[in-house]
């Protein structure tokens, strides 16, 4: 091997420091992403799965409404005896609880638990004591609401079933409180030892039987669950693992982890593109040097070896930087994710991850650097004299290299996603988007080429796009893709937020009052002390749509919702906070009094039910409101953000139509925990028919988890945004070199700096606008696909945000372009000419 001339490498690096910096940063960033996402995502996955497990308090849960069948119980016993699992039976039931000295009684939700419960998470008590030690036979642990409602305290006695129990403590938080917890009564914990004393489990009782299992070897969870499912009575006993259990949280977790991986992959792609673009520019700047070296006798081998050495040095620096950053970042994880990750989860970057990272880093550098380096070999000395670029020979090696890059990329995606099919689809979709971008760019440029304009500056700008040796097309493509990726990440994040996070805003109602009778409204407002939003509910069925009767048997076969059920109608003349029109401008149109002539009334329909029933504007729906038919014309269609915990109605009527129909009213309000107890007491004592559903606990847990996950996403999205910025900077730099020469010639010809600046700004503006437009288009297509097909969440276009992102892009590109040309504009042409005299 030829002796390396270190000075040569050093000079090359110093000469192109901007591109070198971009190159190193891109390598560092890809390493940082790999190392911290690799190591961290493992921790995050553990943590989130742990959250999921905590939400179930076990690995496997078996539900039933009846005592467990013998075959199933036998298997559980066998597993328990052989030490494969630990098990705990949990009975949940409603029961009336009496305070013995008065007649006060209260419906409560009993949870009778065996020792061992909860296997994951903790039942937090007000006294901070240990749950299992507190819950002895003869004692109960109750929710604060029980004390408030019965006006008793710790140490008092409660009669439950056939037994009397001493209140021992107050439960503050229960790990496996169901996500959809919607209960008419507060919680009371009782030890399973008292089950017989309670005497509440007998024929005619309604009990939820839950078998909680902790599997000692986590690898075996799915296997055991399958074995248990095989023994379970179909339709009666249900076996779930904390992973398979279907809940909103679970769906969010899946989407979240997928999105995290997606961000990781995209960051890698961007960083790879950055490496290639920086290197291409760097080598292009050195083309003449290389050509001269070849003229004076340097062999291709000499040059290639030196540039490879340079790339390796830079790659090593980038790798080292990335690893150091990774380690530093790791130190800050506990601060960054305070309250996000449980304290006992250690975030360590394992040596395996580091080695993996270094190998991957080198592979990325090698692969993306190969093609630019190879083009050096084809460079002929005659290049010095010719201005046009020599078309590179695209032999087998070229296409082979491209093939390997693609394969490597596909492999990386599949490896990260751990799912072959989704990975392949994703890669296909990405290539599809690149294809679309390229095609549109070429068409646009062709169109622009034929344009002529009077303004000289603008004309120069147009010409600039097509100057020889220019990289306009590849740069626009790279930039558009990079921007599209960033936009997409943002858009997907916004959509995930809109669906999951914003469903839990801080002002969300935390208590529901049901079954308020129309004549109780006034008194209710008095007790509440404020006027809440009342939701009247009128029950009805649909008889026909456009005179086509509802096929009830067929409807009941539907999996999700069906048209055969009873619907809740309501009346009001305004939209709710989270509603907007998807069709029509007023709830009841403009001419609804005209409908009166045909004995018809207007109705506003929610888009979800419109979809189920294939209902559109102007359709005729006949309702049967408890025996009375109502002919309703659809005058508007509403849509809503899918917040799960705000009330919504499929059918809204004008007040005068339904105000006399039989109805009950409910309301949803927000009160602080402190006020809630007293308020419930007051209402229940004055209007005992009103039921109170307190969902404050549920909301708190859900909101906490969802918010913390969304902040992790934001953090990692930052990585890819940095990568995208680096590409933008590198791309704009790449176009500058040719411009510098032009600026000089303009100056010699007597152009003012302001003219040159204008011409350059126009040129950058055209590039920026094409890129921003393309990125906007492509990112919406991409995000729509991800949201619709992978996450199955509704897609919002976020028009305002898109415009802002595009504007920022344009400003950024112009600003970077301007910043890099300012030195040229300031310097005297003669300086440049002296330096580049031979050209």
């Amino acid at each position, binding site marked *: 091997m030829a002796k390396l001339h270190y000075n040569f490498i050093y000079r090359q690096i110093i000469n192109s420091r901007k591109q070198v910096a971009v190159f190193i940063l891109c390598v560092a960033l890809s390493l940082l992403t790999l190392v911290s996402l690799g190591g961290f995502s493992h921790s995050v996955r553990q943590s989130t799965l742990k959250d999921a497990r905590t939400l179930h308090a076990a690995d496997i849960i078996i539900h039933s*409404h009846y005592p467990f069948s013998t075959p199933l119980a036998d298997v559980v016993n066998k597993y328990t005896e052989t030490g494969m699992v630990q098990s705990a039976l949990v009975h949940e039931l409603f029961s009336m609880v009496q305070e013995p000295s008065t007649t006060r*009684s209260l419906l409560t939700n009993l949870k009778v638990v065996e020792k061992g419960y909860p296997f994951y998470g903790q039942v937090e008590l007000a006294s901070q004591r240990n749950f299992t030690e507190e819950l002895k036979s003869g004692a109960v642990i109750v929710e604060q609401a029980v004390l408030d409602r019965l006006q008793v305290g710790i140490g008092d006695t409660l009669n439950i079933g056939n037994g009397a129990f001493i209140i021992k403590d107050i439960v503050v938080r229960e790990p496996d409180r169901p996500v959809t917890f919607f209960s008419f009564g507060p919680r009371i914990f009782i030890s399973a030892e008292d089950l017989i004393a309670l005497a509440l489990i007998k024929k005619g009782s*309604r*009990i939820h039987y839950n078998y909680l299992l902790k599997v000692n070897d986590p690898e075996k969870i799915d296997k055991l669950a399958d074995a248990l499912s095989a023994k379970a009575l179909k339709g009666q006993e249900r076996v779930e693992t904390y992973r398979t259990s279907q809940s909103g949280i679970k769906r969010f977790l899946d989407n979240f982890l997928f999105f995290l991986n997606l961000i990781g992959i995209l960051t890698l792609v961007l960083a790879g593109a950055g490496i290639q673009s920086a290197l291409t520019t760097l080598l292009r700047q050195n083309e003449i040097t290389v050509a001269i070296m070849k003229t004076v006798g340097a062999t291709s081998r000499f040059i290639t070896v030196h540039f490879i050495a340079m790339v390796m040095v830079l790659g090593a620096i980038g790798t080292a930087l990335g690893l150091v950053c990774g380690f530093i970042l790791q130190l800050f994880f506990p601060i960054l994710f305070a309250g996000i990750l449980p304290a006992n989860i250690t975030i360590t970057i394992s040596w395996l991850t580091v080695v993996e990272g270094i190998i991957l880093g080198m592979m990325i550098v090698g692969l993306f650097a190969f093609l630019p380096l190879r083009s050096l070999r084809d460079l002929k000395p005659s290049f010095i004299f010719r201005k046009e670029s020599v078309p590179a020979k695209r032999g087998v090696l070229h296409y082979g290299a491209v093939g390997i890059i693609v394969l490597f990329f596909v492999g990386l995606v599949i490896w990260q996603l751990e799912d072959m099919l989704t990975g392949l689809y994703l890669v296909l979709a990405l290539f599809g988007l690149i294809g679309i971008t390229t095609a549109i760019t070429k068409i646009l440029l062709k169109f622009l080429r034929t344009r002529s304009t009077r303004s000289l500056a603008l004309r120069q700008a147009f010409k600039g796009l097509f100057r020889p040796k220019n990289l306009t097309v590849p740069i626009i493509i790279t930039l558009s893709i990079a921007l599209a990726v960033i936009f997409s990440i943002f858009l997907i994040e916004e959509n995930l937020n809109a669906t999951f996070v914003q469903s839990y805003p801080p002002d969300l109602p935390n208590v529901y009052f049901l079954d308020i009778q129309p004549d109780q409204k006034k008194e209710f407002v008095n007790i509440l002390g404020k006027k809440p939003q009342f939701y009247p509910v009128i029950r009805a069925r649909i008889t026909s749509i456009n005179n086509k009767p509802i096929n009830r048997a067929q409807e009941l076969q539907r999996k999700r919702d069906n048209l055969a059920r009873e619907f809740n109608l309501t009346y009001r003349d305004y939209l709710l906070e989270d509603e907007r029109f998807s069709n029509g401008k007023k709830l009841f149109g403009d001419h609804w009094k005209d409908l009166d002539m045909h004995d018809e009334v207007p109705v506003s329909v929610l888009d979800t039910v419109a979809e189920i029933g294939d209902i559109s504007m102007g359709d005729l729906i006949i309702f049967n409101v408890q025996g009375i038919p109502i002919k309703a014309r659809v005058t508007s269609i509403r849509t809503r953000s899918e917040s799960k915990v705000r009330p919504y109605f499929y059918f809204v009527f004008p007040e005068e139509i339904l105000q006399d*129909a*039989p109805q009950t009213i409910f309301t949803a309000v927000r009160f602080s925990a402190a006020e809630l107890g007293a308020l419930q007491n007051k209402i229940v004592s004055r209007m005992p*028919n009103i039921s109170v559903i307190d969902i404050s606990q549920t909301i708190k847990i859900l909101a906490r988890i969802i918010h913390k996950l969304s902040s992790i996403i934001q953090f990692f999205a930052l990585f890819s945004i940095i990568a995208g910025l680096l590409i933008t900077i590198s791309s704009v730099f790449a176009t500058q070199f040719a411009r510098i020469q032009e600026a000089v010639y303009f100056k010699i010809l007597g152009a003012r700096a302001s003219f040159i600046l204008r011409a350059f700004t126009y040129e950058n503006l055209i590039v920026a606008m094409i890129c921003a437009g393309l990125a906007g288009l492509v990112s919406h297509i991409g995000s729509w696909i991800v949201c619709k097909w992978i996450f199955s969440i509704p897609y919002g276009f976020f028009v305002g945000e898109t415009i802002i992102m595009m504007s920022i892009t344009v400003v950024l590109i112009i600003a970077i372009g301007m910043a890099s040309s300012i030195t040229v504009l300031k310097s005297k042409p003669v300086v440049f000419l002296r330096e580049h005299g031979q050209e």
Partner: protein
Amino acid sequence: MAICLLLMLVLSGCEKPAKKSVAETTVPLETQGTIIALGNSLTAGYGVPEEKVYPALLEKKLRRDGYHYRVINAGISGETSSGTLSRIQWILAQKPDIVILETGANDGLRGISTELIKENISKTIQLLQEKDVEVVLAGMQIVQNLGARYTESFAAIYPAVAKDQKIILIPFFLKGVAGEPDLNQADTIHPTAQGYEIILQTIYPHVLQAIESSRKRSTEK
């Protein structure tokens, strides 16, 4: 064997048009009155097609037995006795001759005081009686897990009200159905179509009794 089958096929083939013509002739017949089945999800038939819930079954059976009454299903899932009382004017507007009143179970599941339930049912009956409606009260029991004190006091509401206001009582609406896994849906409280067949048998004699006394009442006038 084969001949037997063939014969059955032919016979049943003959039977169909005959049945149809009977049905056709019965429909235009003027109805002799209106029965409203007033209640909660047990009447509405939560999770069961409407034609397999007891009001539809009852109408069919009455017709077969020569009683041409229209039976309206006015069940509302989730309704409490307060809700039933609130909508009684709407029910009366449909001018029923007989009302089968089945309410209170949701109150029970929410642990609402039995005095309030009793008061609501009693007021509902009073309003119906003022309009000369014959009331059949469906006796109800509540899930045993609520505790003996409550369940006993709950079950006592119905016979007491029936006795006080002199109305027909179905001792237990869900007799033979409640607590039977095969006759209830997965949620253990809502009957299946099969369960409604049993409910129909349980209530039928009481409905006939109501028809008799409703007829007697109108002839007296």
